[in-house]
């Protein structure tokens, strides 16, 4: 019934969908297997894409030819560029999505890809021959042959949902859990763990008193995620901000004795940065209120997502507490919040290509690796999909450097350090975040995708080249032209900047705080005319490159310094067990993880700087 596929992707969430596209975009024949064709690319938690560090990841995925950015642009209902006051490396696009439209658009785009087939069924195991995966086994007893398999099971592996004292199996509310895979992987020698995450109640928008809440509108001039010609967002829907209060907290406390978390029924480890509301009031009891973001779920529904109110308390306690929130006095609940526990596999069991060390041609991506977030999942899915393809073609895997992409930081962290809690990306995790900006994701990554042979990249590469030329010529103009004091001083004084006493180079003026290209062009007609030839995206990027050149160059120098350690190669057959001077932990970790370079070795948790010195001594440096 089935041909032998190049790649079978198990699971069609954010990781699975991007994995399927990535392999298909390189020419592989892909089968996407999901338990439910109607829930492809579901937003199981909040209806939003992007945010700080995550928005940069979506831009990177787009630059590499993935679909997350395009789908988001088509289906968002609000766009905000976060962190505008914090500097260009922090600018982070965030979209409020129409949940149903998002999933529908994803399914449509996947169905339009000629290299992707679909099959709806639960995969219960993989088929392994001689330590190599050769297909999957389904609940109906089918064996579907494939050269490679990518597991993206999300929270479905032995998922257990907790609401108060009730608990039942499930992969998310309304969906069955997946069984069989964990057990088989354990037999094959993998080690699994348990994690926990949670989601807040959804309420009926008709029952809320919007006037009692703060309005949070979208950007006046909304941006977008994709570097391609996706439509500009029209007609935005605002979000709202509400607050808990001591009344709410007291009501929640009445349910603590029935909380699955406090009672110890939940064993999995939850994320510290995404605590449930009961966790927040317990741990930060001195705070008398917590902020809530009241987010619409779409254009054609009244369902509202109460961001910040994640809870696994009994549904009646959730309901009573919600009604104590100002603006929520008459709230009706659509669905209760819940916590979910699921199996994950320490990602240290993978190589940097996301292939497992134990079973050849088997790849893992997404929450199965202990991460959280759509963006983190999608980024891994994309890399796993590409590397499954390269594995078949016997080509080098794509391994993005930490200085190249957040996706590189993400995977490098996972493989070298593992994770003790659901891993979420933060900009602080990237040592070179000045270089990993949302405005230059295309410059960083599209040339790589083009070179690797990703479909339809010619036009994108041409755009990148145009952007580079634009940045250069705007830079050349600013270097060359001087401005007269009379022409610019009014603008300088207006912005509390010292007036010029004599002619000065424009580039010097731009470098001053509070001044920008927009202000310069408003005051200098000639410059304005020159800029008319360039898209606003190019001008914005040029401004960042030129205004902050000092810092950017300093960061680049640091990268090249760090890369010296990356260039000290460690061979796979290096016998760490013989080096008694390494700490026991370092010896074991190095032996299992087999780092490719001293740089990678230095990032493995348990490997100390003195262990690195020892290694350097041994290899003669």
């Amino acid at each position: 019934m089935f041909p032998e596929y190049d790649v079978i992707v198990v699971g069609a969430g954010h990781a699975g969908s991007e994995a399927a596209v990535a392999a298909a975009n390189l020419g592989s024949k892909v089968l996407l297997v999901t338990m439910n064709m109607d829930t492809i690319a579901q937003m199981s938690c909040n209806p939003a894409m992007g945010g700080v560090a995550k928005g940069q990841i979506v831009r990177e995925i787009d630059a590499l030819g993935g679909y997350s950015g395009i789908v988001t642009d088509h289906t968002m209902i609000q766009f905000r560029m976060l962190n505008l006051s914090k500097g260009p490396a922090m600018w982070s696009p965030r979209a409020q999505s129409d949940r149903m439209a998002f999933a529908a658009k994803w399914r449509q785009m996947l169905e339009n890809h000629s290299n992707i087939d679909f099959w709806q069924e639960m995969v219960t195991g993989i088929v392994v021959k001689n330590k190599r995966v050769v297909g999957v086994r389904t609940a109906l007893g089918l064996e579907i042959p494939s050269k490679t398999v990518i597991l993206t099971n999300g929270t479905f592996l032995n998922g257990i949902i907790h609401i108060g004292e009730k608990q039942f199996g499930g992969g998310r509310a309304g969906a069955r859990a997946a069984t069989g895979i964990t057990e088989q992987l354990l037999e094959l020698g993998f080690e699994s763990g348990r994690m926990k995450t949670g989601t807040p109640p959804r309420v009926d928008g008709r029952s809320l008193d919007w006037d009692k809440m703060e309005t949070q509108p979208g950007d006046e001039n909304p941006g977008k995620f994709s570097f391609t010609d996706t439509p500009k967002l029209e007609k935005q829907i605002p979000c709202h901000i509400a607050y808990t209060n001591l009344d709410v907290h007291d009501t929640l406390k009445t349910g603590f004795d029935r909380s699955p978390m406090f009672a110890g029924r939940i064993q999995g480890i939850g994320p510290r940065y995404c605590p449930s509301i009961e966790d927040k009031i317990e741990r930060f009891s001195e705070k008398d209120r917590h902020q809530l973001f009241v987010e619409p779920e779409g254009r054609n529904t009244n369902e509202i997502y109460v961001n910040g109110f994640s809870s696994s308390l009994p549904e009646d306690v959730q309901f009573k507490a919600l009604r104590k929130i100002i603006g929520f006095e008459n709230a009706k609940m659509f669905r209760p919040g819940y916590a979910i526990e699921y199996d994950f596999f320490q990602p240290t069991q993978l190589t940097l290509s996301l292939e497992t060390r134990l079973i050849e041609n088997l790849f893992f991506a997404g929450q199965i690796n202990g991460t959280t977030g759509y963006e983190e999942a999608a980024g891994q899915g994309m890399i796993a999909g590409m590397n499954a393809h390269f594995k078949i073609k016997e080509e080098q895997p794509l391994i993005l450097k930490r200085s190249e992409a957040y996706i590189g930081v993400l995977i490098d962290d996972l493989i070298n350090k593992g994770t003790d809690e659901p891993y979420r990306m933060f900009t602080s995790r990237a040592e070179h975040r000045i270089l990993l900006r949302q405005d230059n994701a295309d410059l960083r990554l599209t040339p790589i995708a083009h070179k690797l042979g990703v479909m339809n990249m010619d036009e994108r590469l041409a755009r990148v080249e145009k952007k580079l030329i634009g940045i250069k010529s705007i830079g050349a103009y600013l270097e060359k032209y001087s401005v007269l004091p009379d022409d610019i001083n009014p603008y300088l004084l207006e912005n509390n900047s010292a007036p010029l006493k004599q002619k000065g180079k424009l580039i010097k003026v731009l470098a001053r705080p509070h001044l920008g290209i927009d202000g310069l062009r408003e005051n200098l007609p000639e410059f304005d005319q020159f800029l008319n030839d360039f898209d606003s995206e190019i001008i914005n990027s040029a401004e960042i490159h030129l205004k902050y050149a000092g810092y950017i160059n300093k960061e680049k120098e640091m990268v090249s310094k760090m890369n010296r350690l990356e260039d000290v190669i460690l061979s796979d057959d290096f016998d760490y067990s013989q080096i008694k001077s390494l700490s026991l932990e370092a010896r074991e970790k190095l032996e299992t993880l087999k780092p490719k370079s001293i740089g990678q070795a230095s990032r493995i948790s348990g490997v100390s700087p003195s262990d690195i010195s020892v290694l350097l001594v041994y290899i003669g440096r």
Partner: protein
Amino acid sequence: MLQDRTSDTIIAPTTPSGGAIGVIRLSGNDSINIVNQVFHGKDLSTQSSHTVHFGTIRSDKNQIIDEVLVSIFIAPHSYTKENVVEISCHGSDYIIQTLIQLFVKKGVRMAEPGEFTMRAYLNGQMDLAQAEAVADLIAADSKNAHDIAMNHLRGGISNDLQGLRQKLVDFASLIELELDFGEEDVSFANRDELRKLVAQIQKMIRQLMDSFKYGNAIKNGINTVIAGRPNAGKSTLLNALLNEERAIVSSIAGTTRDTIEEILNIKGIQFRLIDTAGIREAQDQIEAIGVEKTMEKINQSAILLYVFDVNELSIDDVKSDLNNLQRDGMTILVIANKIDKSNISESVFNELEYQIILTSATDKTNLETIKSKLFSFINDGQIQSDQTIISNIRHQEALQNAHQSLTDVILGMDNEVSSDFIAMDIRQSLYHLGTITGDVSVDEILGNIFGKFCIGK
């Protein structure tokens, strides 16, 4: 190959030659067995760790080489964490050499300089800073140097820097909180407080940096060159300061042809006094070489004692000499010599921009003043003996770089640069301090944030 060089048995004398007792150390897993082969007394292989045994060591021809005390240290309870044997023998070079040759014949290898310490480091006995401190300890030949090295060994420098590092971690956390969680309902530290914190950290760093000159002086000694025209009394001054007839003195100008170096210990600091040939138009080729060497020594010195004969030179001569001798970063002390033959008053020299001491080297007047002046150049009283003192150039560089990065932080704030760039300089300073104290990881910063602030929607 490498493997062998870190696990075989090595040997070296651990005491300098010339003492009454010599100690030879062997380290390596076979060390006890090897010594046992030639030791006549108890069976060493059955003895417990940290025991001392009397006996004789005999040659292959069963001749007694020496009566010895053998100390046994069984791995890992030894300095190198390997089996270690220390043999105390009579302190004759001949005996020590014969014993070492005996063991080399048995397959033991001569240790390279610092190899015991390297093994201690490789085997995890100490960290890099401690290993460096041991190297310093071995080289330390004055009491103060020994104190500094011991202080490092006990982790003194790490402890001081640990406090500093924690302050920086807190500081970095505040900025990272602002960057990664700007959308959250948390309040951020205001810039004035950040500035205060940076100033505080910089002050701590500066204190450590200031101690470097002192620490370095204690460790390496200070090159102190005595220079001046021929027959100014330089050699007489050297002898007077050392209180011995070290240099040949005569009334003939140009008696000193070659440079003479001697250590003068003032309150624990070693001043390497360098007596030089007088500077003048050379009368012959040998003297010309002497003058050239004088110039070379002047260039290598931190302190210059300029000696002149008050009866011979005018104030303008002195000024012109000093102009020629002054180097960047050099401290000059002017010694007006032979005042016993003159009735000149100190006020004559008021217009000189240098510190001046009137003396008569022959009569040994004001020698203590010269010594205390020299000491004050190195330690002006601000450094207490129990303070952590930086004596390692690598540490000093790291502190300098960290200080610079923090200055960049302030500069960034002055220019109202956005927080992402300020954070970059903070990270740099953390990185530099981390080279001494160990890395500051992102996980540590995030942990700090999650512990202190309620994050998360």
